[in-house]
């Protein structure tokens, strides 16, 4: 609380009591709300992370507890290989104890997590690239050019995004079967583009519309052609927006379950999301820590990307506004 000084001269005495209540409790209340909110939001992340390092017995005993050692104290040096998961499981007779990162290691090696990761990354990068390149041109056209049948074409282009993916799934599955593109990266990239491209068009159109109107005109006056103005002025200005749209498309592809499931019946050509669901069938409840490890690993990367993206998105959007102001 500020001391009684010059700044407080503006306070209205008559209504003082009413606001003091609020000023008094608000700092406490907002932290209470923050803790309640975050404990709900971080609960699954914490739960999967913590339980992936416990043996089944310990999960059954305290699912929320921090992993702890139940066997005789070891010299510190002996802990390191357990932590790193090099020693596969803890000593005999203590199946219920701390397992370090061995479940992660099992995921990585036995359940072919590496292959899934590679497949997911290839497909996501391919999808994001294709969708972003196509979207940059068409979003520019929708935002800043005039041509016949603009609104119907826009509705048609964005429809693919608003359409539930499950409705596209059957037609695309049959199409890919006819083209014999099932179980290929190309087929998956094309199928994922069906819903990421409209999304990118929608986002980028909004961004291009916010750029000042006279950008192309001044470029034209300086001797650029219309297309030259697009490549030399508009594209460099919108680099941050394009980057964030690329990342969003990447994550959309990363998260998608349905398309990846129907197009990749071969386990090595499917992405992470269907693989995670397979975990439930592959490992019984007895091996819950494997399921937890796989789930945690699949959540970890996108969460980090989003936390990075959050600042990046703000940058991208504010630089568009910065030009305007």
């Amino acid at each position, binding site marked *: 609380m500020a001391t009684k000084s010059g700044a407080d001269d503006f306070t209205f005495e008559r209504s003082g009591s009413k606001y003091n209540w609020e000023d008094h409790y608000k700092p406490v209340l*907002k932290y209470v709300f923050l803790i309640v909110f*975050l404990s709900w939001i971080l609960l*699954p992340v914490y739960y*999967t992370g913590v339980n992936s390092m416990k043996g089944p017995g310990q999960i059954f005993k305290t699912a929320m507890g921090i992993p702890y050692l139940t066997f005789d104290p070891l010299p510190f040096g002996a802990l390191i290989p357990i932590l790193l998961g090099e020693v596969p499981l803890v000593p005999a007779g203590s199946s219920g104890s701390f397992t370090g990162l061995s479940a992660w290691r099992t995921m990585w090696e036995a359940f072919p997590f590496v292959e899934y990761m590679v497949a997911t990354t290839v497909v996501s990068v391919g999808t994001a690239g294709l969708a972003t390149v196509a979207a940059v041109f*068409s979003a520019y056209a929708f935002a800043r050019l005039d041509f016949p049948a603009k609104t119907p074409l826009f509705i048609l282009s964005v429809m693919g995004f608003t359409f539930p993916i*499950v409705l596209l799934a059957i037609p695309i599955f049959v*199409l890919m079967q006819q083209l014999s593109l099932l179980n290929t990266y190309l087929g998956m990239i094309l199928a994922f583009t069906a819903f990421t491209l409209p999304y990118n068009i929608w986002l980028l159109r909004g961004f291009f519309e916010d750029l000042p109107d006279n950008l192309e005109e001044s470029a034209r006056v300086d001797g650029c052609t219309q297309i030259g103005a697009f490549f030399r002025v508009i594209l460099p200005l919108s680099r941050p927006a394009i980057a964030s749209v690329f990342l969003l498309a990447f994550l959309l592809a990363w998260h998608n379950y349905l398309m990846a499931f129907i197009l990749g019946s071969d386990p090595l050509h499917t992405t992470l999301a269907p693989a995670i669901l397979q975990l439930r069938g592959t490992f019984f409840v007895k091996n819950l820590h494997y399921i937890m490890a796989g*789930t945690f690993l699949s*959540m970890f990367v996108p969460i980090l990307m989003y*936390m990075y993206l959050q600042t990046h998105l703000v940058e991208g959007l504010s630089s568009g506004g910065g030009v305007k102001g």
Partner: protein
Amino acid sequence: MSAIDQIGRRREGIGGIVDSVLEEYGSVQGLLFLLPTLVLLTGIVFYPMIQNGLLLSLRDYTLNPAAPDPFVGLANYEYWFFGAGQALFLFSIKVTILYELLVVPFDLVVALGAALLMNERFQLPGLGIETRAFWRGLMLAGYASPAIAAGLTWGIMQQAAEYGIVYQFLTQFFDIPASGGIVSNKPWAFWGVVIAKVWRDFGFMYIVFLAGVQSIPSALYEISKVDGANPIQRFRYITLPHLRTVIVTVVMIRTVFTVGKLAIPLATTQGGPVNYTRVLGLVIYDVGFGEWALGRAAALGMMFAVSIIPLILLWVKTETEDY
């Protein structure tokens, strides 16, 4: 049409020819920019939707891609309306509508609360370091994780077992049967799915609302505070009116985007107990890729598509009306 410059005078020579070409070319230019998108979307959305969606729904799909699929007319539609699929069809429509009616308002309330909370300052006491950006990022943890992983984790946490911590917590307050826990008992399974879905999805609305809340000038709050408005009045008369258009748009988007989603119910309850959480999207998925009756699934999908087109058009209208 020939080239006329701004003064209204025809330009002569080479410049005039270039201008006239550009002008002729001008309206086509937009279409040229659109070309890659149109080619892609025609290939992977429009053509298959007509060829494999509409026409397949009139056929009986055979698993052998070489063999022709026999034409059965409207039999697939009849199956859903009057045949053996009628009960499931009607029930899953009910489930889908109820799911929408629960998920979207909950999303709205949670996201609005989160956005208002994250608009506050969170300075570390004594140090004066602003930690708000970090909490803002953490709020997106749900939205960032894959829906399948979210559903799977919530499903495990809702089982009636020692590790089912959500069950253990809720059973203190509610009488949830111990056999099956939340995920396989009737009224509870639905709530279990809704919790997982809201956890996964509220982040989108939260981002939009956060931007909206930030754009409200803080002077308004200060003035109203001086005039004696309490926090509820300030929310009612300043925050809500400012966010009204945003709320309408976002609720519409969420309604459209929730309608066909199936990953959360699939991973949390697998549609159970019996069909209690089997939303329409999940029915299409099960019939199509579980029973491999792609013709029937396509018929259901076509009806679904037609019924949500008004919703989509409404959304596109709000998107495009101010231009």
